[in-house]
């Protein structure tokens, strides 16, 4: 019985169309990247199935035309029949030939370009998706998505298997491309469902990876289509031999029938080893057992989810059908038995790990390696905080009177790393959607509030240590108030300085303070010197006076004593004694003096002295030599 494959083609087309639309809707709804990419494969399948179906119709018309002509030929005169031109006699055949000659190559070119363009655009789209940027992307309503893609798999698989079997057994070449794509789309639906299951099972990027693999596959199919097009030009045409449809992908056919992959692999292995490996018992066992080995593996995978090992430093939250399990809510480090997924699920947290966040700055990796941290150079992406300025508050009234209103605040840049540890995982995980972000917000709020009430100069000098402790207490109190279940380990005032723009002026103040101190110290040094010298000079003067006093006293005594002895001598020979004393004294006193002696007496002399040094006018005036006593 001749089967009407046109109906099969139409069913294939409609089912693919339906699955394509539904699959795309489900994928968009669940935000599954792989689901959306697989929808494109189904869309390509729809195109191919539509062209195949159209070709089937043309082929059927051609067959009908031949049959009718044969019937006519049997009832009429043959010569009269063949008087007409062949083109007029076989319009359906001609239409089919025209379709094969022009439409199919053009369609195949377009198909290849669509595949290549889609692969390129999808790859870029995936690269820009949040999942590519390592942001944890979740699939919305995963159970619905999995079940829907499971249904698509079953539907496409049953239909594809049926179409492929008919195409193989009855050699319907036009049914093959659609059947191959149905099978491929069935497997892709299964892959999408498995990818979503992995996402739900704790591998959030599984869906992204499946989508990336599908993109690569699409690129391969596009390359194959384009290569086939080129080879078609050089293909030898044998009359009466019908070739494969140009748009039929061998790669799709291969992937759509994995068992053919096994056969191909067996042939390759046989060829490589030189004997029939495929006839060994191991190979035959594997071939027979593959049907139950795969489900067994899946079952083993499911059972393996019953064994959970919580690593040191970790804690796990156990949920059974989404509920906390009484007495076993928190799983500590070590092995644990649970019901298999999806009954029990364990969510792991690195609870004992010391975590940290930053307040007031965002680290700049480019500048983090700089060995010197200066106020005048921005070393992070800094944020300015308002700080109450008491001086400015006092100056505010004067400035306001002058018509210039500047808020009585200063600006400060702070870098505060906060370290914390989770102490109550249940509160941490179930209380807030993002407890770490909330803790960071609360810490920032405490910093803003604290800075709004302190004095800039106090904070930057002696108040720094106290500020750190105060902030830690405040952040801890805020965390406890919200029952976050965290312990604040430290709040470090790592960097605290005026904004970069005014920092040089602050440094100048420090410089001026140093200069002031230097001047004072120099003056103190000079004062010490002055006072020490004065003290020495005073001591010197007193000592000299003491010495003078002693000399005066001693000289007085000595002179008195000498005089006492001189009196008798003088009395005994007054003139001689006086002359002797004079001459002795004169000789002793003038021994070192330069002497000019003038001896002429009888001339009027003009005397010129060139003594180089001015002489005292009364040099000789007061020197009177006792007149010599006349003898």
């Amino acid at each position, binding site marked *: 019985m001749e089967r009407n494959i046109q109906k099969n083609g139409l069913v294939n087309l409609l089912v693919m169309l339906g699955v394509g639309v539904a699959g795309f809707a489900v994928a968009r709804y669940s935000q599954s990247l792989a689901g959306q990419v697989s929808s494109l494969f189904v869309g390509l399948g729809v195109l191919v199935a539509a062209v195949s179906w159209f070709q089937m119709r043309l082929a059927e018309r051609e067959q009908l035309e031949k049959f009718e002509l044969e019937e006519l030929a049997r009832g009429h005169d043959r010569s009269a029949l063949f008087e007409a031109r062949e083109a007029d006699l076989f319009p359906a055949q001609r239409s089919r030939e025209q379709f094969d000659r022009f439409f199919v190559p053009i369609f195949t070119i377009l198909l290849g370009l669509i595949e290549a363009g889609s692969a390129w655009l999808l790859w870029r789209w995936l690269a820009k998706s949040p999942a590519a940027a390592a942001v944890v992307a979740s699939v919305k309503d995963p159970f619905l998505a999995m079940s829907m893609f499971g249904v698509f798999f079953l539907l496409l698989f049953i239909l594809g298997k049926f179409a492929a079997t008919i195409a193989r057994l009855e050699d319907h070449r036009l049914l093959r491309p659609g059947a191959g794509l149905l099978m491929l789309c069935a497997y892709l639906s299964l892959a999408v469902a498995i990818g979503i299951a992995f996402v739900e099972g704790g591998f959030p990027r599984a869906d992204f990876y499946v989508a990336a693999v599908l993109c690569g596959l699409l690129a391969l199919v596009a390359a194959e289509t384009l290569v086939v097009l080129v080879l078609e030009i050089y293909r030898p045409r044998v009359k009466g031999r019908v070739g494969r449809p140009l748009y039929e992908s061998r790669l799709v056919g291969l992937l759509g029938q994995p068992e053919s992959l096994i056969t191909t692999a067996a042939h390759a292995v046989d060829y490589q080893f030189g004997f029939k490996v495929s006839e060994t018992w191991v190979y035959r066992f594997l071939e027979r057992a593959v049907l139950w080995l795969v489900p067994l593996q899946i079952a083993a995978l499911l059972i393996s989810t019953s064994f959970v090992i919580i690593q040191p430093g970790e804690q796990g939250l156990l949920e059974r059908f*989404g509920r906390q399990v009484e007495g076993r809510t928190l799983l500590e480090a070590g092995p644990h038995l649970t019901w298999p997924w999806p009954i029990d699920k364990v969510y792991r947290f690195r609870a004992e790990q010391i975590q940290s966040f930053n307040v007031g700055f965002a680290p700049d990796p480019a500048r983090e390696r700089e060995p010197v941290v200066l106020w005048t150079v921005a070393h992070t992406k800094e944020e300015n905080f308002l700080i109450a300025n008491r001086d400015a508050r006092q100056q505010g009234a004067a400035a306001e009177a002058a018509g210039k209103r500047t808020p009585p605040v200063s600006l400060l840049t702070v870098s505060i790393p906060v370290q914390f540890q989770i102490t109550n995982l249940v509160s941490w995980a179930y209380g807030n959607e993002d407890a770490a972000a909330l803790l960071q917000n609360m810490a920032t709020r405490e910093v803003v509030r604290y800075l709004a009430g302190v004095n800039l100069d106090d904070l930057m000098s002696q108040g720094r240590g106290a500020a750190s402790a105060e902030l830690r207490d405040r952040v801890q109190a805020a965390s406890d108030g919200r029952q976050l279940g965290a312990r604040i380990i430290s709040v470090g005032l790592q960097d605290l300085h005026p904004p970069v723009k005014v920092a040089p002026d602050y440094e100048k*103040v420090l410089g001026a303070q140093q200069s002031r101190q230097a001047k004072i110290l120099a003056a103190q040094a000079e004062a010490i010197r002055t006072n020490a010298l004065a003290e020495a000079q005073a001591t010197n003067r*007193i000592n000299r006076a003491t010495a003078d006093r002693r000399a005066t006293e001693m000289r007085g005594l000595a002179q008195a004593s000498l005089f006492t002895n001189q009196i008798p001598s003088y*009395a005994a020979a007054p003139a001689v004694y006086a002359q002797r004393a004079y001459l002795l004294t004169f000789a002793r006193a003038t021994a070192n003096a330069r002497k000019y002696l003038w001896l002429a007496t009888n001339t009027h002399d003009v005397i010129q002295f060139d003594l180089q040094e001015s002489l005292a006018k009364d040099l000789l005036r007061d020197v009177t030599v006792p007149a010599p006593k006349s003898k």
Partner: protein
Amino acid sequence: MKRNSLTLTIGALLILIVVLLLFMFQVRKSEVAVITTFGKPTRQIMDPGAYLKWPWPIQNVHKFDQRAQNFEAKLTEGQTADSFNLLTSVYVGWRITQPKDFFPKFAGNPDPIAEAERVLDRLVGNAKAAVISKHPLGDFLAPAGGGNKFAEIENEVLAAVRQDLRSQSYGVEIEFLGIKKLGLPEPVTQQVFERMTSERQVLISKSQFEGEAEAQKIRSEAERKAADMLSDADSEAMRIRARGEAQALQSLAIFQKNPELATFIFRLNALESSLKEKSVLILDQSIPPFDLFRWAATNISTRAEAR
């Protein structure tokens, strides 16, 4: 036959799994769910557990996170009661309390939570602007207990937002709110920078001239002290010398025994003392002992001897 039964079993198992997945769903402890029947919300689930439903497209499950959501509202500019422009941003904690009310208002959006936060952001923005305009800048920037009303302002904003929410029945509740950022508009920031620079200039000048003045004071003090010391020393020296003179005076009585001789000796002493340094003397032959030249080595004496 055996192979077929295995295939059938696996197929049946797969169908069973698919059916279970279609008819069952789980709600986690951290979630709430709304069940829609043909798009209409018909049931809300607040407790965790496994539940049954009709398969899609009859019934659909919409799950939402029921934990406290936390978002930071936009940084907005407002004016305080004393007419200062102030930039503020707050963080807000909110929670879905009535999923059935929440769903129709926000679930049409691809990200209902983000959409709800956009709505809340607008409400918070309005309430914040209204509250800030009632407070002077000093209420934000003052020491704790010295006029700082940070917490009061937060509570006022929270109360205002809660009141707005009550009238809207969004199915959400604001749990907490805190001021996260305080800032100034860019032109005002520049003015603050200028004022901070001027303050520093004042301090620089103060340090410079205070140092100068202090140094001068120290030097002056040291010089005065030195002068005091020297004058004290001089007076002391004078007193010492006076004592010496007084002591020496006691021996003057001895000189009075022969005043002529004493005067002569003193003159000799004076002559000797005055010629101690480098001196030049111009003497004629009348001064002893050079008067010897008059008798022994002159022409006069030679001629006289010849006559």
